[in-house]
């Protein structure tokens, strides 16, 4: 009998399906999976704002890309895989040019679907590291770096401060991470490097439910006295960790993190957090022409949700970076296909031929905003250079030169992971997508 | 009535409680009580409020464990009964304030009473065809007989929670009968009933006793009822046994009268 209800629901759903604003054929539909709700909203909101605002700015300033307006639609996932899948199913019918899942869990769920639905997935510096290999994952892109790249760079940096890899011998590196697939991904590489350079690894998992209750982890840190700490955190876990580190009196200059902590995450810890370091690959701040345009065309017109004082902060700018990747890929796709209204398949090609040179960054009003990034059919990641920045109590300051990932170590890992993935997902499709060498 | 009681009173001892003492903390509920129940008789336990009658029944079917004393059932000695064992060895029970499965229908309550007798395992239960269904039907027959016997056909499918008190008492009796017990313990089966209901209940009790030859031990306040139904009466007062004899003798017993002064009905 219940199915009577379903059929009701069916009608409702269909009704909605029809009622959804059908996007005019002369638009590029860009869905933005955002999470302004839930326990991770703290990280999600600025990113969503950045992505949204840059795209809106293009609409307002240039009337879209190549004269084609961008239809931007946010879909709220709350960082929840279930809602993420619902969002995907909801948008896939409206032929999106690209999907940004903004959650490792959602990305993993979408990877198999992407090839079938011909929708490119852009998981920018998160998701499945192995998806960097375009020949195995033609539809997945995770530029500009994988977590393994990130970790290798951190170890490099630590070695540099110690004065050479040989100095790492006997040292201890603590790894505090969100006890979830995302947080656990770097561990194999960390242990491999530990074996190689003779340092010890201490693991400090933080359960999702315990994000704001880390005193015991930091008591462990205090006992083990690791020479360096590396954090793979997310959402509310990060500010708590920084505060606890300050409480425990851990030397901040030895506390490194992957690229996710933003200003808000360290500010709370007060002056004690001075010296905290994390990775980054793009500029921070609002003094770029493009951001000036965003302020002029979007923020000042009240078309943005970003609070005035948060404008141009790290994660906001990361959102902008993500949007640049999308729009540039679209431009390339337009050039390749000589059509204005490109499809997801075209944008996939666009991404594979993406080439963001310093000159190009300058053209789009973001001079020296980020290193040049070039993707190819084989390499969907770029493994670009990263740098370390330090919190000076008020803002991030770049404290290192450009550091290149240890490709020699990461490459084999990627290859292994990819083949493992294929092996376990029996019947994984071979790449059939042609590879064009234009651009 | 009395002759009905008379002819069964001959049976050998079915159950005997021997020197039972039961204490809750400081309070002594039962103090060195002994009496026996003979096969086929109707045994009444009476006494003023708080005399320990219900406690006595609770001891008999193992819900309370006495500190001292033993229960002899079928000749074998049991230091302590437990409810499950009591049920399996054929002791059924109704309660002072009805203890039915309120959420279930009359039919289901009675069928539940057959739980011990139904043997089919999980597999057949899952299919609910073949043996399981046959078994179900067989027991349904028995239950329907009881339903007819107690004249509760009309409320077969009514959740017992919605039934009036009198009927609930009757259903509870039905559930006890469904267990086809050897010994039936009735705790004030007639409280809160009007005259007609009481008469019905008396009739049922007598018929159960005569037709199925079920031994019955009952607690009742209504002296008239007790005197009519029972073959022998044990009188408790403040947890002690003060009399144990045939109704007429008990009536005359000065100790009983003293205990019941003004209470006798």
């Amino acid at each position, binding site marked *: 009998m219940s199915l009577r209800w379903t059929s009701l629901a069916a009608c409702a759903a269909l009704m909605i399906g029809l009622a959804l604003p059908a996007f005019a054929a002369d638009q590029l539909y860009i869905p933005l999976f955002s999470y302004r709700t839930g326990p991770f909203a703290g990280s999600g909101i600025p990113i969503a704002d950045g992505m949204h605002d840059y795209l809106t700015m293009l609409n307002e300033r240039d009337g879209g890309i190549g004269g084609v307006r961008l239809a931007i639609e946010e879909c709220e996932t709350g960082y929840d895989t279930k809602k993420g899948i619902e969002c995907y199913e909801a948008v896939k019918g409206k032929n999106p040019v690209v999907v940004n899942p903004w959650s490792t869990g959602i990305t993993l769920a979408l990877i198999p679907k992407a090839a079938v639905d011909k929708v490119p997935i852009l998981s920018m510096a998160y998701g499945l590291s192995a998806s960097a290999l375009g020949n195995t994952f033609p539809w997945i892109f995770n530029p500009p770096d994988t977590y393994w790249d990130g970790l290798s760079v951190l170890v490099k940096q630590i070695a540099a401060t110690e004065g050479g890899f040989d100095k790492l011998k006997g040292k201890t590196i603590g790894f505090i991470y969100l006890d*979830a697939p995302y947080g656990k991904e770097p561990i194999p590489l960390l242990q491999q490097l530990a074996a190689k350079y003779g340092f010890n690894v201490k693991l400090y998992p933080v359960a999702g439910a315990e994000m704001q209750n880390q005193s015991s982890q930091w008591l462990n840190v205090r006992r083990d006295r690791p020479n360096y700490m590396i954090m793979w955190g997310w959402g509310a876990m990060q500010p708590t960790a920084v505060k606890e580190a300050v409480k425990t009196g851990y030397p901040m200059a030895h506390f490194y993190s992957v690229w996710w902590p933003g200003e808000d995450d360290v500010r709370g810890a007060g002056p004690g957090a001075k010296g905290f370091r994390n990775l980054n690959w793009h500029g921070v701040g609002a003094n770029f022409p493009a951001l000036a345009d965003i302020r002029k065309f979007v923020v000042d017109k009240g078309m943005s949700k970003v609070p005035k004082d948060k404008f141009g902060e790290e994660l906001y700018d990361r959102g902008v970076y993500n949007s640049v990747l999308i729009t540039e890929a679209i431009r390339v796709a337009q050039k390749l296909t000589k059509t204005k209204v490109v499809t997801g398949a075209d944008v996939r090609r666009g991404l594979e031929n993406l080439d963001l040179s310093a000159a190009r960054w300058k053209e789009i009003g973001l001079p020296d905003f980020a290193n040049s990034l070039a993707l190819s059919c084989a390499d969907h990641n770029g493994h670009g250079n990263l740098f370390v920045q330090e919190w000076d109590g008020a803002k991030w300051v770049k404290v290192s030169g450009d550091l290149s990932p240890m490709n020699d170590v990461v490459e084999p890992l990627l290859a292994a992971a990819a083949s493992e993935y294929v092996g376990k*997902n029996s019947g994984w499709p071979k790449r059939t997508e042609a590879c064009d060498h234009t651009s | 009535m009395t002759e009905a009681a008379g002819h069964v009173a001959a049976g050998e001892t079915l159950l005997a409680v021997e020197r039972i003492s039961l204490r809750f903390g400081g309070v002594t509920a039962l103090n060195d009580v002994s009496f026996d129940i003979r096969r086929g008789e109707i045994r009444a336990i009476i006494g003023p409020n708080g005399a320990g009658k219900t406690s006595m029944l609770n001891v008999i079917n193992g819900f309370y464990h006495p500190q001292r004393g033993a229960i002899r059932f079928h000749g074998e000695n049991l230091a302590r009964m437990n*409810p499950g064992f009591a049920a399996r060895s054929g002791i059924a029970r109704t309660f002072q304030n009805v203890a039915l499965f309120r959420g279930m229908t009359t039919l*289901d309550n009675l069928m539940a009473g057959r739980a011990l007798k139904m043997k089919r395992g999980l597999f057949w239960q899952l299919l609910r065809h073949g043996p399981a269904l046959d078994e179900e039907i067989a027991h349904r*027959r028995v239950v329907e007989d009881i339903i007819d016997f107690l004249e509760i056909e009309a409320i077969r499918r009514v959740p017992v929670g919605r039934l009036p008190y009198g009927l609930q008492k009757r259903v509870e009796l039905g559930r006890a009968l469904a267990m086809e017990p050897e010994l039936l313990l009735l705790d004030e089966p007639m409280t809160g009933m009007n005259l007609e209901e009481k008469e019905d209940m008396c009739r049922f009790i007598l018929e159960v006793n005569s037709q199925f030859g079920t031994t019955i031990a009952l607690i009742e306040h209504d002296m008239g009822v007790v005197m009519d139904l029972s073959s022998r009466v044990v009188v408790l007062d403040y947890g002690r046994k003060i009399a144990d004899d045939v109704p007429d003798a008990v009536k005359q017993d000065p100790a009983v009268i003293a205990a019941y002064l003004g209470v006798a009905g």
Partner: protein
Amino acid sequence: MFYREVGQYRTSYRADMAIFPILQDRIGLLVILAVAFVGLPLVGGSFFLDVVATPFLIYALAAIGLNLLTGYTGLLSLGTGGFMGIGAYACYKLTTWFPGVDIVVWILAGGFAAAAVGALFGLPSLRIKGFYLLVATLAAQFFLQWAFERIPWLYNNNVSGTIEVPTRTLLGLPITGATATPVTRYEVALCIVVVLTWLASNLVHGRIGRSWMAVRDMDIAAELIGIRLLPTKLLSFAISSYLCGVAGAMLVFLWYGSAEPSVFSIDLSFTILFMVIIGGLGSLLGAFLGAALIHVLPIVLRGVPPALGIDIASSTVEHLNLMIVGVLIILFLVAEPFGLARLWQTGKQKLRVWPFPY
């Protein structure tokens, strides 16, 4: 007028004990099954099947599972998420070891692992009652979720730390993995749910179901009529967990296509408990109705503003969504504490006497 049992005499106990004694009900059921098996796949698009229908079936199955425990045996549990997880991981391991065997077999087999674990965590239920038991089952929930994170063996040491569903075929037709069409996955889910629902309903209408309800309504009395409490409660835990486990396996293999441990979080347990309560304790139908309401309502609500052409941020919609669902739950509990199933019954009663209510 049309819905009358008058004149339908049941001449044998067999007929009387049928689960749907009334002709119209049987017809109705057949119609619904026809619609479910044939109609919906034809009408519903991939969005409807993947986002509404298949998940609804999976939730309904889990809700039935929990309902056997909470509704029929009166034992509150918040371990559902964990038990579903056990089912999923067990199924995953099994299909990794024996890729040849048809996946449906493993989905069903996965449930047994859940049953075992469920029975284990059911042990305290003999002594613990009510909300104390509720919180005790949380131990299962949190411990299992922790285990899913901590034991790499469970997810075959995948670097990603998640279950990745391989493509498995039945008679050459892919039923899991990306290449499986929504329709296939829906039909498979439907078959499993229909069969298991049938078995469950057989169970609750027989001796075992009665002893469960007896324990629920008055465990002392149940004991005094010879029902053994511990075996009865454990059986309830085991079977309930079995159904939840199967639902969990379906959730991963027929719906998500991959799962990290957080999928089986406490929230899942809560959702299922909702469905049971809202649907109606102690009613299989209720499980379906509850699943429909709790799962479908938010999706519909999410669709409303665009449908009306209102342009508000999706996050705002989400917030309003939460509030509306919350308010509805309260209103609903105020209006009909016995759940949708009871509403259905009253409706049927009205229909029975229609058009002459007096």
